[in-house]
């Protein structure tokens, strides 16, 4: 009866040793093609300095996109990240500048507030059975409102030097502390998703919550934790943005949720859950970052830029289909 096994060798497919980045190959090709084009078309694009600039520019979205990757992997969505970012920034600014707490404490409190927002979203989803879209939409509105209430809509300007330097000084002429933070986080979560059982569990939940539950995964608890992490990272993004802008304002992060989700989805994740990964998300974030940067360097008018961005995003993602179509 076991004679079958020799037969199975025929079915062998070499690709996909371990399904992970799933679907990010197309976008990756798109990214490379775009970079080559921009290097040839401008004399400023291909330089260490410009690369570091872009890294700085994508840090905020990049950090949020890590959390969003987890959320999307389990089949969720988090629309509140932009607002939570603002809330965190305002909490930090208020406690640190207006109240005058030690700045480290202010940062911690900001992160805590952000993580709390995520936790509340997670609880709404798991305990009240709300669709993630609605739960986080509600949180988006609530967090933005609170962010504005804190200072009655005023911005807060001027943080301690050591703090704003985190986003400015490039240690060893290379990485600012904020960019380094993003890279370390991306790496840590990449390892987590790829090599830790708890990370693999997210894929299972996204694939089918019921299958995951029957396999002994505590789906609800994990879900709450994932939204908490997404909130926490959005809060961290708020701290990073404040350092970078040396100011905090209630309107910051407006519309970032769409950018962040776009980065993750461009990177090959499926909004249905179960497919995606940090590597893909990194590609997505870089596509958006390099594209905007490149178009500015090309002196493309802002209106035309929008058209080009739309077309390039479509092409980058379609590349995957066009490629896989040939396979079938």
């Amino acid at each position, binding site marked *: 009866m076991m004679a079958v*096994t020799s037969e199975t060798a025929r*079915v062998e497919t070499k690709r996909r040793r*371990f*399904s992970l980045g799933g679907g990010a190959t197309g976008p990756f090709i798109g990214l490379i093609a775009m970079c080559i084009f921009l290097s040839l078309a401008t004399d400023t694009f291909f330089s260490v300095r410009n690369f570091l600039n872009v890294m700085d520019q994508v840090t905020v979205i990049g950090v949020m996109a890590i959390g969003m990757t987890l959320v999307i992997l389990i089949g969720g969505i988090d629309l509140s990240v932009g607002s939570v970012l603002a809330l965190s920034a305002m909490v930090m600014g208020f406690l640190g500048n207006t109240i005058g707490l030690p700045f480290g404490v202010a940062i911690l409190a900001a992160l805590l507030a952000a993580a709390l927002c995520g936790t509340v979203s997670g609880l709404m989803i798991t305990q009240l059975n709300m669709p993630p879209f609605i739960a986080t939409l509600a949180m988006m509105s609530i967090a933005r409102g609170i962010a504005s209430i804190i200072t009655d809509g005023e911005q807060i300007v001027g943080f301690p030097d050591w703090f704003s330097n985190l986003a400015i000084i490039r240690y060893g002429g290379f990485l600012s502390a904020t960019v380094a933070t993003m890279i370390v986080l991306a790496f840590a979560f990449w390892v987590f998703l790829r090599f830790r059982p708890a990370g*693999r569990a997210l894929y299972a939940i996204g*694939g089918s919550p019921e299958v995951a539950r029957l*396999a*002994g995964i505590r789906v609800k608890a994990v879900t709450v934790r994932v939204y908490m992490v997404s909130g926490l990272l959005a809060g961290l993004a708020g701290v990073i943005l404040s350092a970078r802008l040396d100011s905090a304002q209630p309107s910051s992060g407006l519309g970032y949720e769409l950018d962040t989700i776009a980065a993750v989805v461009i990177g090959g994740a499926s909004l249905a859950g179960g497919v995606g990964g940090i590597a893909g998300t990194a590609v997505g974030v870089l596509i958006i970052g390099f594209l905007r940067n490149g178009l500015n360097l090309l002196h493309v008018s802002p209106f035309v830029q929008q058209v080009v961005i739309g077309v390039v995003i479509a092409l980058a993602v379609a590349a995957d289909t066009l490629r896989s179509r040939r396979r079938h």
Partner: protein
Amino acid sequence: MTVSSPSPDRDVVLQLRGIGKTYEPVTVLRNLDLDVRRGEVLALLGENGAGKSTASSIIAGLVRPTVGTMTWQGAPYAPASPADALSAGIGLIHQEMRLLPDLSIAENVFVGRLPVAGGRVDRAQMERRAAQQLHRLGLDVSPSMLVRELRVAAQQQVEIAKALTLKARLLIFDEPTAALGGDETDRLFEQIASLKAEGVSFIYISHRLDEIALIADRVAVLRDGELVATHETAQVPVKRLVEDMVGRPLDRMFPAIQSIEGGATRIEVEGLTGVDGAFSDVSFAVRAGEVFGIAGIVGAGRTELVRAIAGADPVVSGTVKVDGVPVHPGDPRAALDQGIVLVPEDRKAQGVLLDHTIADNIALGNYPRVAPSGWVRPAAVERFAEAAIKRFGIKGRGGQLARQLSGGNQQKVVIAKSISRQPRVVILDEPTRGIDVGARAAIYDVIAELAREGLAVIVVSSDLDEVLGLSHRIMVLNRGRNRGILGHEAAGRIEVMELATT
């Protein structure tokens, strides 16, 4: 054995010539010649992964062949979509296709061809006709009920009703009875017989070989994508069919039942009562080394009972103890931690992650063994999966997506995943649904082996022979109540059915 050559037979309605299908780099169907005649039931047999569903999908326009041609009622036939096939009069019940859970039964039956009166969907007519057809199949439920509220067997009946109301000239049934009990199967056969008399042709796929003689007129057997035998009559000994499918004789189906001296009580169920009265006050105990069968007709509450034991559903009252330790109810994780694993009945919804690799599926829930250090190394996952693949004869590679497997092989993946946990109690709900004879024998061997290793094994099956052939004792469930537990010696078809239906 006659490999069919183009025949002038006027009765031939569908002709396949040289049909082949390749999913790079694998060829799953090659050079298939097949004739279907008017008013006949052609049984299409073969091991899991032999290519039966692929061939059906090609005929029904769901998949396009890589090479080959077809004719339908004498004219060239190359459907580009199921819509083309349907309008030509060819319908398919797909082995894996599910219904639309959020729509009513009636709408599911008539999806894509809702009856219209005065420009509006004629709901009254639709529900009436759906109810009629379902009644003929033995399912009397309100046609306005949502499909999501139905159990697997009832869903399968809706699926069948959908096909039977098609007014098709050729119907392809891909394992229609895999989820059905004996009664439902009988009724389906009545329906097939009467349509046959009207000249409708059938391609009938099943792994229940004893059905073949009852329903089929001719038999075609596939092996590894090739037609290896056709029989002009269905009155072929099952032994012969098995040989055609597997390529060698299969000596026996069930392993000998071992005696279980001195096995301590492994699992004890006491007064278990489920939500909504699906089952109530069920008590039994299973000893280490024992195979315990649960029999009953469809809807008896067997699935709900075992799901509750495994913590998948909440219970109203009662206790479950493993080795004397009570299990916290309603929490699959708690049950798993105490060594209870469930191979669920509904593999697509509860068993397998379709868009994940086979390796990932098998590793799921087995990380403590795959990655004892807490670090999941891809190579370790692959090795772990490879071992399971070998043990269960799964036709596929670790890196392949589960979606790409044939139905039977998906089922094997689910079993492999659960058994790999090294449990103390294994519950298998319809374990051999959609599994070919050869593999079925292997799974029976596995079950016997698990018992020998000192596990308690609980088997739920609508295949009475399976329960009878495997179990030391059999509990008969009827309307959610334990109607008695029969010993292996005392249990026969008649005894069990009597308890199950009265």
